[in-house]
């Protein structure tokens, strides 16, 4: 419990630091967000009026203070969006008629509440991230294990060579190859997009998830192969074999389970990064996720969207790391004992 509380405390500090740096960078970079809204050819008088409307006429320190004051606050449940003080809020936790609100303000560019934009985009990015990590793990585990079972063989060399190719190929190249093959050639899957129904969403998800999956699988292939090579030579594996355990049981139950801790660590980091948005893949496949939104916000100097994207991404990283930490204890009880010893 103490460990969990400490991790949560650090998570808040991490999020605060990252957002403060983003806020500062957004202020220090050249360019005027109001000008980006008004357009390059807008007259200065019109730009000034838009600057006032966006609240950019106030000093940065005032805006920074207001941002944090508004970010998490107490309010009513349900939210009355006609009330200007809560027009851009969303509920995080509700207790009776009271609720904890989160409020990132309005997007400068789109004029929409940022919580609505992020809450629409985040599930899509989560779906893509989870699907991509699943593909990475399934491909990486299968190929890596197959290679480890015949070290030095032609199969091993072929699989390791293929993994080198996968890790060297940029995602946009993998994306184009997959689009050409599965969308244009075989016509099995949509070229890009998001779709309108759940079935269409699923079909549209396949190619971007495969793109990220193939790219990441190469790394897992090598990681799992190396782990399995070491494990398969250990005494207790030899003992299991000597006792007549079938090969699949030796590989999966005895060896692979013990290789999971480093794999889980890498997968947790990967998932955290993917939840921040896989910008290139989302762009190539027109997958309307958080990555595409945050890049556009950075280019357009859309401060509220940028800060919200950064918070979402940093919380995703923190949450996945926390989940991985908690999963360790399931996989290897010695870790709990070590933590308990360290905390004493």
């Amino acid at each position, binding site marked *: 419990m103490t460990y969990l509380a400490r991790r949560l405390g650090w998570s808040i500090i991490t999020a605060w630091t990252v957002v403060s740096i983003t806020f500062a960078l957004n202020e220090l*970079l*050249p*360019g*005027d967000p109001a*000008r*980006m*809204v*008004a*357009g*390059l*050819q*807008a*007259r*200065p*008088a*019109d*730009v000034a*009026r*838009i600057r006032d*409307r*966006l609240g950019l006429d106030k000093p940065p320190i005032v805006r920074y203070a207001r941002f944090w004051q508004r970010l998490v606050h107490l309010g009513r449940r349900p939210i009355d969006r006609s009330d200007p003080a809560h027009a851009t809020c969303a509920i995080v936790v509700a207790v009776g008629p009271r609720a904890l609100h989160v409020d990132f303000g*309005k997007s400068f*560019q*789109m*004029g*929409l509440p940022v919580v609505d*934009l992020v809450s629409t985009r985040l599930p899509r990015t989560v779906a893509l991230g989870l699907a991509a990590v699943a593909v990475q793990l399934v491909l990486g585990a299968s190929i890596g294990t197959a290679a480890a079972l015949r070290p030095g063989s032609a199969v091993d060399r072929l699989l390791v060579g293929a993994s080198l190719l996968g890790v060297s190929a940029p995602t946009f190249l993998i994306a*184009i190859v997959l*689009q050409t093959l599965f*969308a*244009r050639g075989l016509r099995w899957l*949509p*070229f*890009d*997009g*998001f*779709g*309108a*129904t759940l079935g*269409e969403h699923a*079909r*549209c998800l396949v190619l971007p998830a495969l793109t990220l999956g193939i790219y990441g699988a190469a790394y897992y292939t090598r990681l799992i192969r190396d782990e399995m090579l070491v494990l398969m030579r250990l005494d207790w594996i030899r003992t299991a074999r000597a006792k007549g355990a079938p090969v699949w049981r030796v590989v999966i139950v005895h060896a692979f389970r013990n290789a999971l801790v480093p794999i889980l660590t890498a997968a947790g980091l990967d998932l955290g990064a993917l939840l921040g948005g896989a910008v290139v893949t989302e*762009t*190539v496949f*027109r997958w*309307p996720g958080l990555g*595409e*939104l945050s890049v*556009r916000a950075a280019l357009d*100097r859309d401060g509220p969207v940028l800060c919200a994207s950064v918070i979402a991404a940093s919380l995703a990283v923190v949450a996945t790391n926390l989940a991985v930490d908690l999963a360790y204890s399931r996989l290897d009880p010695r870790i709990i004992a070590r933590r308990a010893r360290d905390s004493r």
Partner: protein
Amino acid sequence: MAGVCAVCAVSALGSLPLGCNQAAPAPIPGDSNEDAPARRGGILHLASFQDIRNLDPAGPSDGLSAEPQHLLFAGLVDFDDRGYLVADLADHWEIADGGRTYRFVLRQGVTMHDGSELVADDVKRSVERALHRTTPNPNASYFAGITGYRAFASDLTDHLAGVSVEGRYIVSFHLDEPDATFLPMMTMHTLRPVCRSAGDRYRDDWTPCGAGPFKFAEWQPGTLLRLVRHDAYFRPGLPFLDGVEWSFNMQLVAQRFRFSEGELDVLRDLTQSDQRRFAADARWKRLAGVDADKRVYGESMNTRMAPFDNVEVRRAVAAAIDREHYRLLAPGYMTVLTQLIPPGVPGYDANVAGQRYDYAAALEHMRKAGYPYDPATGQGGWPTPIVYPLYDRGLLVFTAQLLQEQLARIGLRIELRLMSWQAFLTLQERPGAAALSQGAWEMDYPDPSSFFDPLFTTGAIPEAGHNVAFYSNGRVDHLVAEAHRELDPERRRDLYREADTILCDEAPWAFAYGYHRFYVRQPYVRDLTPHPVWPLEATRAWIDRVSDAGFARLLRGAIR
């Protein structure tokens, strides 16, 4: 609005790989003969590599938003398909008080998308909503000449005194002084009437509703926009299409693929190699076209910074640029431009003596400036390198390199400095910061004043406009102001001709090239011709493919 588009136009072209060496796909024929009458039905599918930001005509806009806005909102006046200013929602108009009053008599029985009838009160309410202080309208100050604008914009009054309702169908605009640009500016989308649901003041969450040929159906930001036919449109029988659909953020390769499959009906974002392929293919010749030249690009010289404070150096630059070399960078998109006004803008005057490439004259101007340069020895010229800021957007990087090579031949050494777009804008507008930089401008409203006023008048020097050459000439100021007031078209043209001639001679910019978009349509898309002013006019377009409705439904999922 247009500025973003002017930048995007050239960036789209240079930002993608040139594509593989494939033949252009086969056109998909229509069901009927060429002379078949138009018929109703079908969805027009379009795509863009960009996204739109807003559909409210009073709000911030961009080049692409203008397409749906034009179909959603009709104006009191508009430009027809030959470029003539005509009445649209207005039945007719009268000019009174020596050009200070414009009285519009509305058509009766115009039904808006919400079913209500358009009346004069709606016009006044829409204008006040668009020009109110709290509205993020980037074009509001264009209408500062309407009587009472300043008081209204400062929130001193609740209503705009210069717009008066004189009957159920009569609305008058009163101006502080005669303004020949008023009618062209009224064609802009920003003041077009909106439904009563829009209210008196701008709201971000309003669902677009106007009196245009199409009405709003669905918008998924970043992905898709769908408009459907407004069956009660005031022009009987129009539009023919059931709807128009845009897909956004679509890569150029994906667009080409979908176009070849018939899932996109018009291809407008092409790689250079695709453009060449389609343009060279006889099957696509009559199906390809370009939109009007409404953009000017040139090299802007800061007239307050050495060496460009010397008019002879500026003349040397204008004479040293071989514009044909620029054009050859993207021959399907770029045109040689020797004067300020591009040929696609109403008021373009072919008789203006523009800037011309003349290497010998350029060397002579350098000599007159006091910096003689000897091409044989490479000696002389301006002694120190001149920093040329640029941002990494497609063609601009190539034109900058070309400029560097051409100016080196007259003794001006250019040092290219790459930076972000925002940094570039900031630097360009800061006094004494950028001696030489690229200038770009796109028509905001169809009139020469859309170029002269913001770019070359003293009042537009960066604190108040976009005169990044910091150019000031009393005669030009006088001519432009006079042309603003002058209602006689002939006299007005003479005034602009003289102003343009002065600019070409004194060269605050070396005008270099214009830019237009290339497009190809499938043969079954009929009567979709480029409009001289607007990026998309689909009121009379129709789909000659009976199976289109079912086909579109079948493929809709894939297109998204």
